[in-house]
């Protein structure tokens, strides 16, 4: 009989029950293997000692810290996944990645009631870059009023492409050629419909500004108390994670974001918000440069962590994002009211190549 492999000898050291009886019997009688086993045991002991670190973790203190961090993250919301280098963390969870990597899967499909005026529909995406410190200063929506979530963000894994298509109403991506290192079949996730109503409150906005040492200009007529409806349509994602916590690649699609107003037009609300002294000027200036018709979706990103560049995918303008440490790239674009993103532990060339090779027909 042949000698068992070094790997088998290694397993004999600490998981002998996993080794076949014939191998065990051989090793017991074979001087060569017994010597190999002794060497394996020796190296394992040295490695174990070298790696051992005494850790007496204070679980209560650690839980307090985590609770606070989770509360802050909850308040900041999932769109912050696009900000401040959270991409890497986001990608560790396929579920979070579905929300985070596309960043703004606030789709548009929920029906607007008759008295709701569509005021925003994303037709393109443009990066807004600023130092991380400025992005952290950006106010959140609930600093300006009340948000009532009417449909919670819900993401679930489904059996396959067909189930994802049926649940989301979108066609699932077919990847022409997988990049090197990405193998196997993807897992499919579906994002359900999400919706919320936002009611602007001049009083709350004023309080927020006062806390920042600022005084707000009076809101334009009709803005105080006016309502906006934000809707999130279904989306789907194919995630190649190969059983690891860090997915190698994902392709996600969702209906592009939209917003509806019950009162004031988009321009009125936007111009007022952009005039506020609490927005960092470099951010406000970039936002002012967007078209006035409410079709450009800003993608907030920090200059320290990410870089962006322009590209095209199938004739549509696309934004390529890469992390400065080179570990992650993503490309995102809007076509016919649908946002699509390809992201992963890949290079910019690789995500673009996948994006350009995608087919949606089945």
């Amino acid at each position, binding site marked *: 009989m042949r000698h068992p*492999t*070094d*790997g*088998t000898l*290694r*397993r004999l050291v600490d*998981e002998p029950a996993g080794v076949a009886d014939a191998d065990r019997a051989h090793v017991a009688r074979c001087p060569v293997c017994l010597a190999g086993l002794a060497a394996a045991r020796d*190296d*394992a002991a*040295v*490695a174990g000692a070298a790696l051992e*670190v005494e*850790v*007496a*973790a204070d*679980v209560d203190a*650690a*839980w307090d810290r*985590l609770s606070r*961090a989770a509360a802050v*993250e*909850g*308040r900041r*919301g*999932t*769109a912050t996944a696009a900000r401040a280098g959270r991409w*890497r*963390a986001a990608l*560790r*969870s*396929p*579920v*979070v990645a579905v929300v985070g990597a596309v960043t*703004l899967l*606030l789709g548009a499909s929920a029906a607007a009631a008759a008295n709701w005026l569509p005021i*925003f529909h994303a037709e393109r995406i443009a990066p807004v870059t600023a130092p991380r410190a400025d992005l952290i200063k950006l106010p959140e*929506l609930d600093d*300006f009023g009340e*948000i009532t*979530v009417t449909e*919670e*963000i819900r993401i*679930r894994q489904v059996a396959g492409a067909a189930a994802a298509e049926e649940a989301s109403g979108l066609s699932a991506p077919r990847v022409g050629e997988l990049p090197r290192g990405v193998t196997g079949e993807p897992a499919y996730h579906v994002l359900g419909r*999400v*919706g*919320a109503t*936002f009611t602007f409150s001049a009083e709350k906005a004023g309080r927020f500004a006062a806390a920042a040492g600022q005084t707000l200009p009076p809101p334009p007529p009709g803005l105080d108390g006016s309502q906006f409806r*934000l809707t*999130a349509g279904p989306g789907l994602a194919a995630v190649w994670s*190969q*059983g*690891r*916590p860090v997915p190698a690649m994902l392709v996600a699609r969702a209906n592009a*974001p939209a917003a509806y107003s019950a009162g004031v037009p988009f321009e009125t609300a936007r111009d007022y*918000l*952009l005039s506020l002294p609490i927005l960092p000027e470099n951010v406000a200036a970039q*936002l002012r440069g967007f078209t006035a018709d409410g079709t450009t979706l*800003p993608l*907030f990103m920090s200059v320290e962590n990410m870089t962006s560049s322009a590209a095209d995918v199938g004739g549509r303008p696309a934004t390529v994002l890469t992390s400065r440490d080179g*570990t992650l790239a993503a490309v995102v674009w809007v076509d016919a009211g649908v946002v699509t993103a390809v992201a992963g532990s890949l290079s910019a060339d690789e995500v673009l190549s996948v994006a350009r090779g995608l087919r949606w027909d089945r």
Partner: protein
Amino acid sequence: MAVSKPPGRAAVRPDLEQVFRTAYPRVVAVAARVLGSRNEAEDVAQEVFLTFGRSAVPSGEAVGWLCVAAAHTALNHLRSGRRRASREEAAGGSDRVYPDVADAVVTLDERRRVRAALARLPRKQALALVLRHSGLSYAEVAAALDLSPGSVGTTVRRAESALREELNRHASSD
């Protein structure tokens, strides 16, 4: 701009606290094996649990998932040179009491060599080594790293052999 802010709050899974209290020491220990530092390992554990809190990883798979994520994240920290805690330790904020100064110097130096060796190992070997020494079974390591159970032993063996060579090489050149 307001429209790009999501309306929902990030939902934190309801079993987070229970999983955290059960698994936290083990997850910290995984990261500490990579980083050699409790402070830094606790930072990694926080990061990993935050991600877990927003995930839909089944409860039954939580501990394995957390250990694998901690090993990945800790290796990323090691390689990206984010060594705040280790600098603090070197400056005197040690999380361990040494019997005497000579021991402390030897231990810190050996720790540094172990980290350097881990950083040089191929990622799969480093992960297999750390996860096996953290108590994951061969089958669990195989599943986490997309290896056959048979090749886990080979991978761990290679890593241990490389680690030992690295330590010996430095020891003899000192």
